[in-house]
């Protein structure tokens, strides 16, 4: 069973940002290639500068709020249980230099990229939406990290309990924040994203008569990751009243999510010792390693190119350039 690693940096307005050389990605256990790492990191770090501090995200240490500090207590309890979600919990409580809140960043970049006049800044509602996107993603990771316990085990049961409650806390907090945005369509879109990532857990990546295994993978990834990013992009454009860019933004969100995930699979496949169990082996059975990599890189590059094409609808500015750099960095 593969433990999920979720790496999130919880920044406050007071901390400076700097370039962090080592980055890991969700669902990937193993180190990615050096070239890829550097260009991705650089693209993301530069992008963070474009939008100022990525978020006004909760910092579990700096927010003097009863509820938040309680969460820290419960996450620490999770750490003590031996539960697979320990890494996730650790990164939430002890935020370190290795974390990026990339989904929130994408939302902020999209918000800024759509501004036609240079003076316009990202709206507070858009920043809140970026925070909500990260919260929902975190809740997703935590809840999908709950493990099935067939035999009683006090520690793991406690771990599950903490995982359920903390995930619920993040979801509830997201809903309350969503309500403050005073936009019904956005509430509907994010609710749809949560429903989609739930549905994704029940999809098998097995070829059927109508769909190839690759189609099923696409469907699953669209629901699991694409929906949240796409709907978040769409929502931020709604909030920014950039009606004409909504379709492009939404599609861009989807393409970048698929490209990103495809790249994660490729990198982990390359560095994974046990390839037979990897999802790519299942997508391309009985294919030599080199061909599997090449095939999936082609899939990834299709999505990257589609994303770049959609970006051309946006005004040329620092933010849209940063988005392009991030997309291109995935191709390495």
């Amino acid at each position: 069973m593969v433990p999920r690693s979720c790496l999130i940096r919880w920044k406050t307005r007071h901390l400076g940002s700097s370039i962090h050389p080592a980055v890991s990605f969700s669902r990937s256990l193993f180190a990615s290639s050096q070239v890829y790492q550097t260009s991705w990191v650089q693209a993301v770090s530069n992008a963070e500068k474009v939008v100022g501090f990525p978020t006004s995200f909760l910092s579990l240490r700096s927010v003097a709020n009863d509820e938040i500090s309680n969460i820290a207590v419960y996450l620490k309890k999770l750490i003590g249980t031996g539960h697979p979600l320990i890494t996730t919990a650790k990164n939430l409580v002890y935020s370190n230099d290795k974390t990026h809140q990339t989904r929130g960043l994408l939302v902020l970049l999209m918000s800024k990229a759509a501004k036609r006049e240079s003076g316009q800044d990202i709206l507070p509602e858009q920043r809140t939406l970026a925070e909500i996107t990260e919260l929902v993603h975190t809740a997703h990771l935590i809840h999908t990290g709950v493990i099935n316990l067939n035999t009683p085990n006090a520690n793991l049961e406690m771990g599950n309990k903490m995982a359920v409650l903390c995930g619920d806390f993040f979801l509830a907090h997201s809903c309350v924040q969503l309500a403050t945005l005073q936009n019904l369509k956005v509430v509907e879109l994010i609710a749809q994203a949560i429903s989609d990532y739930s549905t994704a857990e029940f999809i098998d990546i097995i070829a059927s008569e109508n769909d190839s295994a690759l189609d099923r993978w696409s469907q699953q990834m669209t629901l699991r990751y694409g929906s949240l990013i796409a709907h978040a992009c769409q929502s931020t454009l709604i909030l920014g009243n950039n009606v004409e860019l909504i379709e492009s933004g939404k599609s861009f969100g989807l393409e970048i999510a698929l490209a990103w995930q495809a790249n994660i699979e490729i990198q982990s496949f390359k560095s994974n010792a046990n390839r037979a169990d990897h999802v790519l082996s299942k997508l391309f059975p009985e294919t030599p390693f080199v061909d599997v990599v090449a095939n999936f890189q082609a899939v990834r590059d299709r999505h990257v190119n589609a994303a770049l094409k959609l970006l051309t609808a946006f005004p040329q500015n620092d933010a849209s350039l940063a988005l392009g750099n991030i997309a291109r960095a995935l191709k390495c």
Partner: protein
Amino acid sequence: MVVSARITNFLAYSSLTVSRVSHLGNGSLRYQWLLCRNTSLLQLRSKIQTVVPSITSNVSVPKENIPTADALVRPDLEGLYEDIREGLTNTQPELRQIAQYYFNGEGKAIRPVITMCMARAINYHLDQNAPGVIQKQKKIAQIAEMIHTASLVHDDVIDVADSRRSRPSVNILWGQKKSIIAGDFILAMASGMLARLQNQQVIILLSQVLADLVQGEFMQLGARENKDERFAHYSEKTFKKTASLIAYSCQAVSVLSGADSTLQSIAFQYGRQLGMAFQLVDDLLDFIATSAQVGKPVAADLRLGLATAPVLFAAQKFSELNPLIMRRFQEPGDAETAFRLVLRSDGLQRTKELARQYCNDAVTQVAQLTPSPYQQALVTLAHQLLHRMK
């Protein structure tokens, strides 16, 4: 059945005077004070009316012909569960199955009944007859039931339950992982429905419920060192876990009807007081029901480590209960000892009293609405709740 002016005046008098005599050591006055204190601590968007008007109208419907709330709103709730299940179909087959599992119509549907009854009573009071309004109010009833059920699914995983409503619980049938995801799915669908009601305030109210439910669950995990704080902690937890959903659902349907803040407050307060009473009665029955059964000597709450109202009251007479409460009845024999001491004390009696006070307060609230069969049914609901304790 008739809320006499004398009782309401007494309540009004006592709630006004008690707030000035909070230093009195007398137990029941102290808890009435807590009742008032908790009332004023609520985060309501509207101002809370604490002065109780004197009741002069008597209900004219003869006693024997008063329909129960359940019967009155049955037409409105026709197909409630079918509609909910319908709303959960747009997904993978297995997720659909898990999500629909608890919506088989076996539950008491107490929340939809209260919600629709309040909706009808408020509509009558405001002479609100627009067809769109009742449709939306029915959706609130559905959403309330979905939120409640999603929380049950998560609770079953958290409590490692093995059965619910005489059937295996979801976590037993599908495992914890899928059950949690199913709970999230139900919540997401409920949120989508909420958004489509096109009312900002209603979304704010019901999303607050979600936050309260989680916080209530966290509160239940924690314990208060200081025994004087324990009852306040228990009250707040009870509000968040049980009463919040009912209170905000009632307020939400009143908002949809066009209620002003005063009327919304009445709806909210009724839901809140009834919800608090509901939980107290549940906590009481947890003791009474088990003592009637052979071979099951301890209450389920005690076994879960929870100190509910009967225990907290008993601890005032038997201070040896305090260490047991602090260690959540973990040591062997703790639960049995606590159970025995509760039965020996006046804990059950005082819990009944408190439930009665909450019910009376709820009745006082809706007595301010224009008399109608629905308004009367809301009163009946409170009385029926008290009857469960007998």
